């Protein structure tokens, strides 16, 4: 019996996981979420402290696969920006990501009644990686080839008159939505003067917090939990808040499995394999 438990077929665990995730999606429970003061609150305050009319730049560094985690953050931040009267410039380091968020951002902007080219702009993906961004630091228009995502020249977009150089005077804050590389290293290394907020996938939190005390990051939104916290801060509960219950149950499943695994291990007292070194 215990021997069997020790070598439990993974497929049973997989089945349990699917069940545990689906049930709360169909029948939500609605447990409350508290806000993390060191990370999410800091991000919220950084953006909240910008004077009305400042330009915030979004750096899209994710793609469809991390949609469930990062897109709700983007929507919640846009909600806050609309309240504060901030302007938005969408750029990005991931081409697939910009394709992916294009319509979502446009739809959200439309819901606020933002005017394209005046209140917000999407300059699209610019090939060339870091060297392109470095070129934008000296001359944004030239570095960005002078056109937005739909090939409209910058001359026809009034907001671009304010962005001649990629520096702290033109861009008050960069929010990077990051799920991998290239990512925030670009900004930390080459543009340390512009305030940087990271909307991060959960996997990168542990390795990113060290940038908070040094001020290299002005805020960090941690994963779906962070998105739910942000939705709470802006007072608009959305998708993330709804999905937190499924998260709760699946975490309990893992804890249950860990306990079960330890019971099996200690009662069989058999040394199988060895822990990584």
């Amino acid at each position, binding site marked *: 019996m215990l021997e069997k438990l020790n070598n439990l077929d993974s497929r049973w665990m997989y089945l349990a996981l699917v069940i545990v995730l689906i049930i709360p999606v169909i029948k939500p429970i609605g447990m409350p979420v508290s806000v993390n003061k060191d990370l999410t609150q800091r991000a919220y305050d950084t953006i909240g402290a910008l004077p009305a009319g400042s330009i915030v730049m979004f750096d899209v560094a994710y793609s469809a696969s991390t949609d469930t985690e990062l897109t709700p953050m983007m929507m919640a931040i846009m909600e806050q920006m609309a309240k504060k009267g901030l302007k938005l410039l969408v750029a990005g380091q991931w081409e697939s990501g910009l394709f992916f968020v294009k319509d979502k951002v446009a739809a959200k902007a439309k819901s606020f009644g933002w005017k394209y080219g005046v209140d917000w702009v999407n300059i699209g993906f610019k090939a060339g990686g870091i060297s392109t961004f470095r070129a934008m630091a000296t001359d944004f228009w030239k570095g960005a080839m002078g056109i937005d995502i739909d090939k409209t020249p910058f001359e026809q977009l009034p907001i671009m008159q304010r962005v001649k150089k990629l520096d702290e005077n033109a861009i008050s804050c960069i929010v990077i939505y990051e799920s991998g590389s290239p990512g925030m290293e670009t900004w930390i290394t080459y543009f340390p003067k512009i305030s940087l907020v990271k909307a991060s996938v959960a996997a990168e939190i*542990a390795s990113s917090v060290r940038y908070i005390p040094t001020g290299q990051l002005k805020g960090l939104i941690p994963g779906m939990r962070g998105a739910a916290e942000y939705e709470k801060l802006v007072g608009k509960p959305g998708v993330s808040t709804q999905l937190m219950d499924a998260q709760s149950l699946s975490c309990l499943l893992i804890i249950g499995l860990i306990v079960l695994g330890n019971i099996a291990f200690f009662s069989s007292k058999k040394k199988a*394999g060895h822990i990584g*070194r």
Partner: protein
Amino acid sequence: MSVDGAVSGFITAIVLMVITWYYVTSARRGKQMPEIRKLPGLDAIDEAIGRATEMGRPVLLANRTADVGSVHSFALWGYMGYVAGLCAKYDTNFINIAGDYLAAAVNEEVIKQSYLEAGRPEAFKPDTVRYIPGDQWAWTSAVAGMLKRERPATTMWIGYFYAESMTLSEVGAQIGAIQIAATTNTAQLPFFVAACDYTLIGEEEYAASAYLSKEPMLTGTLVAEDVGKFIVVVVVVLGVIAQLVDPKANLISNWLKF
């Protein structure tokens, strides 16, 4: 120059170069280099290849992200030369999966060279190095499928990995392979630690080429690295003193900002 740390960074680079140069030169002159501390993950390589030989199954060494200019490739070639040499000696099938096409071409060269040194150049097969496009999940699906089909007895995951680390190491564990992982991506280390038999943490990945080859000059670069660490510690201690003396104008801190 207004970039934070640009000048002090430049000085750091120069200092490190000089230290490295010094130790390499003294190693070349035959000065005895200190011994490297034990790294169980690297000591396990021989045993793992021996096991693969007994079982008659291949040895797999894979990396997705490293291009030809990346330090991970430089590290990888150290492992590759050693492992391929042993595989050639024991006549064990060796497979390398690369995610970058330029690197794949170089990997082939490194492996051929090892086969030649082992005296068995004819044992090199054209499908030893397999390139799979480095697009994260396409690559992972191919490697996972390959693991289940060819069931290597030993898998080595060396270099920079992202979220695929969990899939690779867990599928590897399911087929019962001995797994050795080395990565500098601290966010992915826990998954390798959880599912692999041996994990080289962070910087240990880079130490392999010196450790495995036992070449005194390469060991010299490791000594230089350790001296670098010692300097970091000294700078931090000085910084702490300066901070206690005058928290408003920390001399060391200002210097590092320069």
